[in-house]
């Protein structure tokens, strides 16, 4: 027995890893495969075909919903990233301040809060202030939901950062604010970018909160998919789902490439 035996994979480890990842991926793989199924029925394999994707292109409602989702996603992700990074800076560098506990509590809560509660509460707010529900209400809701994810990612990156870099900048003549923008911000960029991407995908995927806070004629993609799914399994849904999975996977690959590139340049370690 050696050090390698102490820290290498036992058969139990290998089996649990294999089973775990199989469990996570098999349903998705089946979904993707059957989106190319020429036959309508899930159980019968009718050969390879992309007809369902073609039908999707003709489904105006679906396309409009997808477009809506994209717009909401980009807008809310941007707001969430800006606000979340500011919050992370305050929490990481601001020391103790009055209301800090409340602040971090408010930021952490949406991470775990059941979405029905968040959705309902936001809807009631919008009604009370008599704001027309539609694009902007959904965007505001998503911003609120995803901001905390950005904060968590950026805050842990800020905590790991070597403070002596900022101190060196100040020593060389920068005010604290300038030191932040000149030194800190570039170094946490990968984490900020990762936060944006996470906020974007979360917004893209969200069903419950969007359902509560959207208005007539402003359906997002998940809302449309959900209404279809309630009516039963349809291969077109397989197609749109496959597209979404591919889209998210693409974003993740880009995110990890970005963080690899920056660490190759001597920057930060992978923030994911």
């Amino acid at each position, binding site marked *: 027995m050696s050090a390698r035996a102490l820290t290498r994979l036992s058969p139990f480890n290998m089996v649990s890893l294999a089973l775990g990842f199989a469990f996570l991926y098999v349903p*998705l793989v089946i979904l993707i495969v059957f989106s190319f199924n020429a036959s309508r029925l899930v159980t019968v394999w009718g050969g390879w075909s992309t007809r369902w994707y073609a039908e999707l292109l003709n489904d105006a409602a679906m396309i409009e919903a997808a477009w809506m989702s994209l717009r909401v996603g980009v807008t809310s992700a941007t707001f969430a990233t800006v606000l979340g990074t500011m919050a992370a800076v305050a929490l990481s560098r601001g020391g103790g301040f009055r209301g800090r506990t409340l602040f971090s509590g408010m930021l952490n809560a949406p991470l775990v809060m059941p979405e029905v*509660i968040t959705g309902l509460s936001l809807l009631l707010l919008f009604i009370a202030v008599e704001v027309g529900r539609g694009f902007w209400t959904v965007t505001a809701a998503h911003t609120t939901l995803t901001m905390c994810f950005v904060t968590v990612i950026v805050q842990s990156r800020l905590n790991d950062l070597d403070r002596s870099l900022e101190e060196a900048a100040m020593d060389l003549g920068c005010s604290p604010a300038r030191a932040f923008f000149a030194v800190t911000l570039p170094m946490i960029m990968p984490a900020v970018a990762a936060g944006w991407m996470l906020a974007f995908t979360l917004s893209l995927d969200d069903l419950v909160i969007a359902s509560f806070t959207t208005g007539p004629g402003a359906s997002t993609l998940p809302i449309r998919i959900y209404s279809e799914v309630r009516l039963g399994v349809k291969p077109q849904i397989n197609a749109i789902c496959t597209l979404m*999975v591919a889209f998210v996977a693409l974003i993740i690959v880009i995110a990890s490439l970005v963080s690899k590139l920056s660490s190759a340049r001597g920057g930060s370690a992978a923030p*994911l």
Partner: protein
Amino acid sequence: MGASRNFEAPARIAAIAPYLWMVLFFLVPFYFILKISLSQTAIAQPPYEPQFDLSQGLEGLKAAAAQLSVENFRLLVIDDLYVFSYLRSVVVAAVSTLILVVLGYPVAYGMSRLSRGWQALAMLAVIVPFWTSFLIRIYAWINILQRDGLLNDVLMALRIISAPLVWLSTDTAMYIGIVYSYLPFMVLPLFATLSKLDASLLEAAADLGCSRRQAFWLVTWPLSLPGVGAGALLCFIPITGEFVIPDLLAGSGQMMIGQTLWGEFFTNRDWPVASAIAVVLLIVLLLPLLVYDRLQRKQLEAR
């Protein structure tokens, strides 16, 4: 350490905008939930009264306030439907969390044993489902669990069953869906904790007489408990209020509280009761939420 003082003041200014946002979009809405939970249903737009209307002046406000009552809360307590819904939610969440710990720990542990390069790949492999919509992942299971779906096909081909079983609209399907959706939520924090474990601690344990299994239970397990706690809470709290998964996969018998709330709001248009349900759910979750917040703060600030 003195230099960090220079950063504190400007950093605090950065807190203002997000602070205001969260107060407006997170705290204030709770006031509205509370207020409406104390109101009554009405055929009106919005469908509740009293309405606080400043045009009536202070007198009007006072009159409206007098109409508030805890009637909705009494309803929740009296009507078995709601009590059982809460109980079911907590039980389902607890059972699911337990299953998630049992299934998720070996996966996270195996991941922590991989070499650096493989670990990064494994993390990515866990993140892809994590970032994929719940809806899509549940739908993937509907595909498999349908009467003429793949699971039945495979089981019949293996001659384990002779006729297709009903999988959908059962509690089993719901548990499968919950565990499937929340597994990354358990694996990722647990993996983060396990991968930070100092390898020399295991060598020291071996040096002092522990076999591999003893070293796991005496050193690795106790030190991984904070990660287990974080992952468990990260799963338990949202599962309690789950709506999509039970709605699509579970039977139409007993409903979880998320479904009840949704039904009251969208189907019955009974906003006050829906709000009351939300308030009580929050109270039920208050303790786990506080514990989770504590753990999070310790994690993020223990540097």
